[in-house]
C-alpha cells in the first residue's frame, strides 16, 4: 500500500522507495503511540499521502523513469491492453496533486469517500465533488484520445 501509492503518485520508483522507507521508519519510531493494526494502517496511509503531496509540490516532480515504459510484474501482467492502461495512468498523473491522490485511494486502495476524507483531512462533500470532477475530466480526455485514434 505505502510503496504502491507512492510509486503510482510520483511515477518515480527511486523517490517512491525512499519516501516509503522514511514513512516506515517514522512509523517504527512512533510505534508505541499506535494502538492497533488498523491504527498503524491508517497512520501509514495518511503519512505516505501527505509525504507524496508535499514532495510533488516541493520538487515539481517529473518522472525520471516512465513506469509505462517498464514491464509490469509477471504475476500481474494479464492485461489485454497495456497501452490503454498506460494512457490512463498518464492522464491520472496530469491531475492536480489532491485529485490524483483521491483517485489512487479510490481505485487502487478501494477506499470510500469517507475514508479518503479522513486521510486527507477534508470534508466528505469536497472529496465526493473532487472525485466526480476528476473522473469527468478523465472520461472526457480519454474519449477525445480514443476518437482521435
Amino acid at each position: 500500500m505505502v510503496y504502491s501509492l507512492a510509486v503510482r503518485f510520483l511515477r518515480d520508483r527511486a523517490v517512491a522507495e525512499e519516501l516509503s522507507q522514511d514513512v516506515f521508519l517514522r512509523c517504527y519510531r512512533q510505534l508505541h503511540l499506535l494502538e492497533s493494526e488498523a491504527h498503524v494502517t491508517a497512520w501509514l496511509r495518511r503519512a505516505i499521502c501527505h509525504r507524496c503531496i508535499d514532495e510533488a509540490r516541493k520538487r515539481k516532480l517529473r518522472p525520471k523513469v516512465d513506469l509505462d515504459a517498464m514491464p509490469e510484474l509477471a504475476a500481474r501482467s494479464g492485461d489485454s491492453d497495456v497501452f490503454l492502461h498506460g494512457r490512463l495512468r498518464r492522464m491520472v498523473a496530469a491531475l492536480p496533486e489532491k485529485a490524483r491522490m483521491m483517485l489512487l485511494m479510490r481505485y487502487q486502495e478501494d477506499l470510500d469517500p469517507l475514508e479518503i476524507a479522513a486521510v486527507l483531512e477534508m470534508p466528505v462533500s469536497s472529496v465526493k465533488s473532487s472525485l466526480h470532477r476528476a473522473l469527468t475530466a478523465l472520461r472526457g480526455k480519454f474519449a477525445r484520445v480514443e476518437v482521435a485514434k
Partner: protein
Amino acid sequence: MQDDFEVQLRRALRPVEAPPDFAAKVLARARAQRVVAFPRWIAAVAAALVLAAGVGQAIHVERVRRAERARDQLILALRITKAKLDYTRQRLEKKNHDH
C-alpha cells in the same frame, strides 16, 4: 455501480509490489539509526564527564591558590618573627655589652 471506464481505471491503477529487498532496506536503516542514536547517548555522558572534569579542575585551581596564599602568609609571618627575634637579640647583646 462501476462502468467500464472505472473498471479500466481500477486495473490501470492496480497496486505495485514493493521491490523484494524493500523490507531488508528499511530494517537496515532502522538498525543504522539505532547505531547513530547510541553515540548520542555516549555524547551526553561524555559531556557530563567533561563538565565534571571542568568542575574538578576549577576546585583544584582554587585549592592551589589558597595554598599559595597560606604559604605567602606563613613566609610573611616568619619574616616578622625573624625581625622581632633579631631585634630582641640585638637588645640583649647591647645590654650585656653595657654591663
